[in-house]
């Protein structure tokens, strides 16, 4: 895997070509690790590598400086091969302080590169991290390729004649770390230099300080004897096209805008800020020139009720939230369902219950999406499986919502939302159009608000249309007329109709596909953000000769029509989930399939090895 190549970077040192690497930057939450990680990501993406990222940060904006609680990390996996996860074990770790070392060291592979900012390992820093002795001196790090760098001193030195105060100067340290990593992995500094110009252009001294520090970091790599060689990673063989780097939240936002355009609608977002969904609100609020109207409501309930009002008025209306917010929206979701209006409810899941782990990922709101309302209230559910996939998921959700006149729940999660990967840019004109028809005044003689088409969808008549005045509401309505109706048989009939309408969506979505053999010993059945780990684990096991396939569900309600038949072709079914078995519960209840589960809720995605090990255990 490692071969010596000519130094293409102009480095005088030896350059090894490797397939890829997993690198984590860890420091205090005020150290700018997320910014550094995103820059490293963009730079690697522009170098043509496939990438996958995992930002991991505390819920507190600024936990006390230097403490274990305040450690913020950003993990990047880049490769010349197709990759699906941010990587299990780290090849390199940058620890900006003792707390970051302590909380992250366990993930570093033996002999892995460990770059530490020695200056932060003073008495206070060690004490905040609960180190009794300095680990840099005890020999406990002998199993790693330890590279001690006086990052604070070197950064201050690089900016010293700019007249910045020490606090401002020290804030540049993340750029030093970046520069060093750029040298180590043969990266160009161009992207980040352009970023510095754009971001700090208004503060020339800060821009200059960051520029100098970045280059100082790179030059340090070139000159220090501690690093004898650097690495080169070839571009990945991605499908031809133009790419950009996308996070899941951004891809959802852009997907909704694309869906609006494809359906000839203007987009309305009613939302209340909540981690980790707020970035969708931030992103969409930038695009008023696209006709996007965002409304930051007074609470989660007002957010969804405004969306129902906008949907009644004919807009493409969506609300974005996370589990606790969805809990508050439950009653209004029930209303949207009985009103049979199209709208989207996006849940970027996080650790629960209650406030839970706001910044950590989890998949534990599936049953909430499925059942979290009073009465018989089926709502279709679609889920995204990766950051780039969020774009397609957004469009598909809206297609279903308008074709069937129903609210649709979109499930993402914190891992997908904040993670990034290359996204192949589509041409908006190539995206399928979403057809919507509204009845007009010409239909007045035959119009009934609760008549139905071949999909059992009712007409979407919007206020302002002459002759179609009608009233809708949360009370049970009479079939066809929509008038309030307490008749027992009618209630049964309407309940059946609404359920059938949602069940029929199964005939309108693709059959479930499988990656791997058509039949065999084991099927790994996943959904959502575990896609990468499942894919990689299954491929690895198959390479070792095991008979295992992978199916990943986008559609969770209703399930694809062939799912029962598909599961029947394998001797065993394994469902890995970042919850305590919610899809497994649904699969067992729906199909009487004795699926096995692999479950954890530790605020972290699955490691590939965790799933691979379970596959092997089940097939042993």
């Amino acid at each position: 895997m490692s071969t010596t190549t000519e130094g293409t970077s102009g480095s005088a040192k030896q350059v090894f070509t490797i397939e890829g690497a997993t690198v984590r930057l860890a420091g205090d939450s005020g150290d700018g690790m997320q910014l550094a990680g995103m820059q490293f990501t963009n730079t690697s993406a522009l170098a043509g590598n496939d990438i996958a990222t995992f930002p991991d940060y505390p819920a507190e904006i600024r936990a006390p400086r230097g403490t274990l609680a305040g450690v913020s990390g950003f993990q990047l996996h880049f490769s010349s091969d197709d990759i699906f996860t941010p990587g299990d074990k780290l090849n390199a770790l940058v620890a900006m302080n003792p707390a970051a070392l302590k909380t992250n060291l366990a993930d570093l592979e033996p002999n892995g590169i460990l770059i530490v900012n020695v200056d932060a390992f003073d008495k206070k820093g060690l004490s905040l991290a609960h180190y009794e002795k300095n680990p840099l001196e005890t020999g406990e790090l002998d199993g790693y390729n330890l590279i001690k760098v006086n990052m604070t001193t070197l950064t201050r030195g690089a900016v010293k004649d700019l007249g910045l105060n020490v606090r401002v100067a020290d804030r540049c340290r993340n750029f030093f770390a970046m520069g060093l990593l750029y040298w180590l992995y043969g990266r160009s500094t161009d992207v980040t230099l352009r970023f510095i110009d754009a971001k700090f252009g208004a503060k020339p001294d800060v821009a200059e300080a960051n520029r100098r520090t970045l280059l100082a970091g790179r030059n340090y790599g070139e000159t220090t004897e501690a690093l004898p060689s650097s690495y080169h990673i070839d571009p990945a063989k991605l499908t031809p096209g133009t790419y950009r780097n996308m996070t899941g939240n951004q891809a959802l936002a852009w997907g909704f805008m694309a869906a609006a355009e494809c359906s000839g609608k203007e987009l309305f977002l009613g939302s209340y800020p909540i981690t980790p969904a707020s970035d969708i609100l931030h992103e969409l609020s930038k695009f008023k020139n696209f006709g996007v109207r965002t409304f930051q409501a007074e609470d989660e309930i007002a957010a969804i009720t405004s969306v129902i009002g906008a949907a009644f008025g004919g807009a493409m209306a969506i609300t974005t939230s996370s589990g606790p917010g969805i809990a508050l929206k439950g009653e209004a979701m029930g209303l949207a369902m009985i009103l049979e209006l199209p709208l989207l409810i996006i849940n970027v899941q996080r650790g629960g219950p209650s406030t839970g782990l706001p910044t950590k990922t989890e998949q534990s709101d599936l049953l909430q999406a499925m059942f979290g309302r009073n009465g018989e209230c089926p709502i279709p559910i679609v889920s995204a499986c990766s950051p780039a996939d969020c774009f397609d998921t957004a469009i598909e959700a809206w297609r279903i919502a308008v074709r069937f006149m129903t609210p649709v729940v979109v499930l993402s999660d914190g891992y997908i939302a904040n993670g990034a990967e290359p996204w192949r840019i589509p041409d908006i004109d190539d995206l399928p159009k979403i057809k919507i028809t509204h009845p007009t005044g010409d239909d007045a003689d035959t119009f009934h608000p609760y008549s139905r088409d071949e999909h059992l969808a009712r007409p979407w008549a919007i206020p302002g249309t002459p002759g179609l005045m009608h009233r809708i509401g949360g009370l049970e309505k009479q079939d066809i007329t929509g008038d309030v109706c307490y008749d027992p048989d009618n209630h049964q009939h309407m309940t059946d109709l609404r359920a059938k309408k949602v069940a029929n969506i199964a005939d309108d979505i693709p059959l479930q596909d499988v990656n791997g053999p058509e039949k065999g010993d084991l099927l790994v059945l996943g959904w959502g953000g575990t896609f990468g780990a499942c894919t990689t684990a299954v491929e690895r096991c198959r390479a070792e000769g095991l008979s295992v396939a992978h199916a990943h569900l986008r559609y969770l309600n209703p399930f694809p029509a062939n799912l029962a038949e598909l599961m029947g072709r394998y001797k065993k079914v394994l469902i890995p989930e970042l919850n305590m078995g919610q899809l497994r519960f649904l699969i067992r209840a729906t199909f009487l399939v004795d699926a096995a589960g692999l479950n954890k809720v530790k605020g972290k995605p699955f490691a590939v090895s965790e799933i691979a090990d379970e596959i092997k255990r089940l097939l042993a």
Partner: protein
Amino acid sequence: MSIESLPILTSADFASDQDIRWCPGCGDYSILAQMKKVLPTLGIPREKTVFISGIGCSSRFPYYMNTYGMHSIHGRAPGFATGLKITNPDLSVWVITGDGDGLSIGGNHLMHAIRRNLDLNIILFNNRIYGLTKGQYSPTSPLGKITKSSPMGSIDNPLHPLSIAIGCEGAFVARSIDMNIKHLGQMLKRAAEHRGTSFVEVYQNCNVFNDGAYSWATDRESKADATIILEHGKPLIFGKDRNKGIRLNGMEPEVVELGKGVTEDDLLFHDEKSPEPSLAYLLSRMRHPEFPEPIGVFRAVDHPRYDDELNRQVEIAREKQGQGDLNKLFHSGETWSVSS
């Protein structure tokens, strides 16, 4: 369609085909009747009119109007109205709510709708009781009120809807009484004509669970002394013989008799257009029986409207940046190409 060719609508055109299910004698009938009378005078087509309500007796209102309508969920009508109005600014949107719906479960939404000042008309039917759930005290029930859920008397300090509305920066705040149909019609019309959130409290009798709650304001003998009709620019005079008035004593209102050294010029003059809400607030605090309770327009000022402002931002963004182009957006910033 020219103005001349607009069909002339009548009260009957605004009646839906649904049977009305309020209790016989309920004050809601009167409000419904006045609404149907006022709407044809506004020149707004039926299809451009939308009624949105929450839950409660009053919230059945939209079913009885031949317009667009939504009977939503408890307390949340302002949220639905907000989303509808933002995306359809040319609609005339009414919110129908009650004292429980608007001030208890929906207090938060009412507060924010009023401060945002969207062009909505919010009519709060205040009967000081929960009617639909059969007789529990509401957030406007007086202290000591004996109800099914307060057999020893309510110990909940009541809210005053207009004080709340004014405290929320309400730009149009008015009050009327179900029995005073002429005045009620005038207030609904003023509310409809005001641009921005118009908040109207209607004293409404629940003849089943709280009969006579406002008899002092509606009985022929007492009403002239127990209420005072606000008129912009006029002194606050009331009483059967119109011989009593309200005078300011420092920061406090006081009832005075005209004559005996007190002239009209000494009285408080109503100014609904005052930029400062203090006078309107002071009027909203005048309670029976210490004071005559004011009915009329407390405040009518012009404030920026959220719906206008949001849609203006959309226009400005389009002027400055041009209509958005997704292909351009997708290719903006850092991209890279992979060739085959």
